[in-house]
C-alpha cells in the first residue's frame, strides 16, 4: 500500500513538474485580440442597427457568440463572412444577411436643411444649405441615421435596383 502511494506520488510529482516546465517553455501570450480584430472589421459608424450601443459592444457580442456575425446590416454578407471565418463559424449555417440598403432622397421634398448630411457617419450625403442633397451610393452603408435626422421625411432606404452594370446571373435551380 505504501509502495503504491509512493509510486503514484512520485509519478504525479514528476509529470506535474515536467508539465510546469513545458508550460514555461511553450508559453503563449494570453490576450483576446479577437474583439479588437472584429471591431476593426466593423464599419465603426456606430449606427446601432445591430441592437447594440455601438460597434465595440457588437464586436464583443460577436466574439462571445451572443450575436451572429450577420447582425450588422451595413457590413452585409462580406463582413459576416470575414467575422465568421475569424471565429471559425461555418458561414453556411448562418441565415441570409439582410440585403444591403441604400438611402435615397426624394428631391421634390428635400428642403436642403443639411441635417441629414451632418448625421451621416460616412459623409455619404452631399449638398449645401438650401440646396437639394444627394446620396453617394458608393459611400452609403444604409445605416438609416439620416432618416431620423430628416425633418421632411424625404429619405428612404431601399435595396439597390439592378441595372446592366451590376446585374448578375441568378443561381440555377436544379432538381
Amino acid at each position, binding site marked *: 500500500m505504501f509502495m503504491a502511494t509512493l509510486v503514484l506520488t512520485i509519478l504525479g510529482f514528476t509529470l506535474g513538474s515536467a508539465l510546469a516546465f513545458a508550460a514555461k517553455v511553450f508559453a503563449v501570450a494570453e490576450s483576446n485580440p479577437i474583439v479588437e480584430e472584429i471591431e476593426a472589421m466593423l464599419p465603426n459608424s456606430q449606427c446601432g442597427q445591430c441592437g447594440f450601443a455601438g460597434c465595440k459592444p457588437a464586436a464583443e457580442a460577436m466574439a462571445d457568440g451572443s450575436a451572429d456575425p450577420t447582425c450588422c446590416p*451595413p457590413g452585409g454578407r*462580406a463582413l459576416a463572412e470575414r467575422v465568421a471565418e475569424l471565429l471559425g463559424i461555418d458561414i453556411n449555417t448562418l441565415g441570409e444577411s439582410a440585403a444591403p440598403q441604400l438611402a435615397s432622397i426624394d428631391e421634390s421634398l428635400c428642403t436642403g436643411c443639411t441635417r441629414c448630411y451632418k448625421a451621416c457617419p460616412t*459623409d455619404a450625403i452631399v449638398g449645401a444649405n438650401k440646396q437639394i442633397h444627394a446620396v453617394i451610393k*458608393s*459611400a452609403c452603408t444604409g445605416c438609416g441615421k439620416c432618416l431620423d435626422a430628416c425633418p421632411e421625411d424625404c429619405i428612404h432606404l431601399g435595396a439597390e435596383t*439592378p441595372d*446592366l*452594370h451590376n*446585374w448578375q446571373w441568378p443561381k440555377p435551380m436544379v432538381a
Partner: protein
Amino acid sequence: MSIFSPIRGGVHPEGRKGDTAGQAILTDIPLPARLSLPLFQQAGASALPVVQVGERVAKGQCIGVSGAGLSTRLHAPTSGSVVAIEDIVAPHPSGLPATSIIIEPDGEDRWQERPREDDPFARSPEELAEEVERAGIVGLGGAVFPAAIKLRQGRRYEIRTLIINGGECEPYLTTDDHLMRERAAQIVEGARLIQHIVECYEVIIGIEDNKPEAVAAMREAAAPFGKVEVKTVPAMYPMGSAKQLIQALTGREVPAGGRSNDLGILVHNVATAYAIQQALRHGRPLLSRVLTLAGGCVSRPRNVEALFGTPIEHLLEQCGGLRDTPARLVMGGPMMGQALPSTAVPVMKGTSGVLALTRREVNDQAPSPCIRCGRCVDACPMGLMPVEMAKFARADDFDGAAEYGLRDCILCGTCSWVCPSHIPLVNFFEYARGEMKQRRAAAQKLEYTQRLTEARNARLEREAEEKRAAKAARAAKKKKPARRATAKADNEASTTTSTEDCDS
C-alpha cells in the same frame, strides 16, 4: 480529344456553317426607320451621350464619349436626327432596360467632314492608337474590350508576335470566314498597322483548317509582306479563344491571372483588324459590322453587314424572315452567345451573329442529377474540374469552387455542352463569379466606408478640439465673434469633404 491535339480538351460540335458559307456578305441593307444605340456597348462603363434630343447628326459624328474607366466612343451610324434618348430593352440576357440614343435616319447618309487620307504608316504609333480610340473600336470577336486600350497595353510590353485570330470556332458563325475571303487585303493591312503601332516582330494569322477559302485568300494577301504568316490550326472548339489559339500556334500558355502580353503576344480578331484598317486608312469610325444570321428558323441564312442600332427584326426580314418561332434567339454563337429577349433589340458592337434556333438545335432538357462521368473534366480546354466547381458553387462555397479553378474558367461552355445530365454548368459559374464579384465589391465598400468614418471622426474631433481652443481663447479674451467664425468653418469643412468624396 486526341493526344495529338495542340490544345487540352476541346470538342467538335457540328459546324453547321454550310448554310451561310459561300454566300457573299450582304451589304446593301436598306436603312431601318430607327437606329437604337445603347450607351452600354462594351466591356466596362457606359458611354456618355454628347448629343441632345432633336439635334441633327452626320454620319460618323461622335454621339457618345468614353465614360469613366474602360469605355469607348459611340458614333452616329448614318445621318439623321436624334429623336430620343430613352430606355429600350437591351440585347442582354437580363432583359433589363438600357439607355440608348435613338436616331431617325434622314436617308442622305451624309458623312461628317473626314480628315484627308494619308499614309497611316507614316504617322507615329501613338497618334494611330489615339485615332483607334477616337474611332470607337472594340474587340469584335466577342469580348468587346476597347481596342485602343489593348494597343496601349501592348506598347508598354515588348510584343514579339501579333496573332490575328481567325479561328472562328463557334458553330453557325461565318462572319470572320467571309471577311477573310472577301476583304483579305484590308485585314492584312490592318494587321500590319497594329504591328506598326505595337512595334512587334512578326504577325501570325491563325485560321482553322475548316476554312480553306479564307486561308487561300489570306495567304495571297499576306504573300507580299515578310513576317506576316498565315498558319492553320485544327478546327475544334474553343480554338477561337485567345488562350487556346496562343497555345495552338506557339505551344505556350498564358500564365493564370496574366495576359498574353506577359508572353510578348498580342491577339486581335480579324474583324478588329479590319475595323482598325478602315479607321486608320479611311478615317471611318466603327459604324457597322458583319454578322451571321443563321439557325434553323431563319429562312435564308446569310452574312450581312449592318449598321449598329439596326433592329434585328429588320435584318431578319432581309433574310426572308423567320420560318418558325425560334425556341431560342441567341446573340453570338451557340456556345458562348447570349439569349435575346426579343427580335426588337438592336445590333451592337459585339453582335457577331444572331441565331434563331429550333427546339431541336437547342436540345434543352431538364437537368438530371450529376453522375460524375467526368466528361466535363476531359473536355475542359483549361484543364479544370467543372463537376467539382459546380458542386461547390451550388453549395455557395465559392472558395471551394475557386480552389477547383473557377477563376481560370473562360466560360466557353464546353462542359455544359458535353454534360449528359444537361446540368447548366456555365450558369453555375456565371452565378458564382457574379456573387464573388459582388462580395469583393461589398468588401471594398466596407473598407471605403470605414475610412470615411474614421476621417469623419477625426474631423469631428479636430473640430471639437478647435472649438474648445476657441472657447478657451474666448474665455480668455471675452470676445464674441469667434464663435460665428468657427461655426462657419465647421459648415464649410463638412461641405468640402463631402464633395471630395463624390469624386473619389
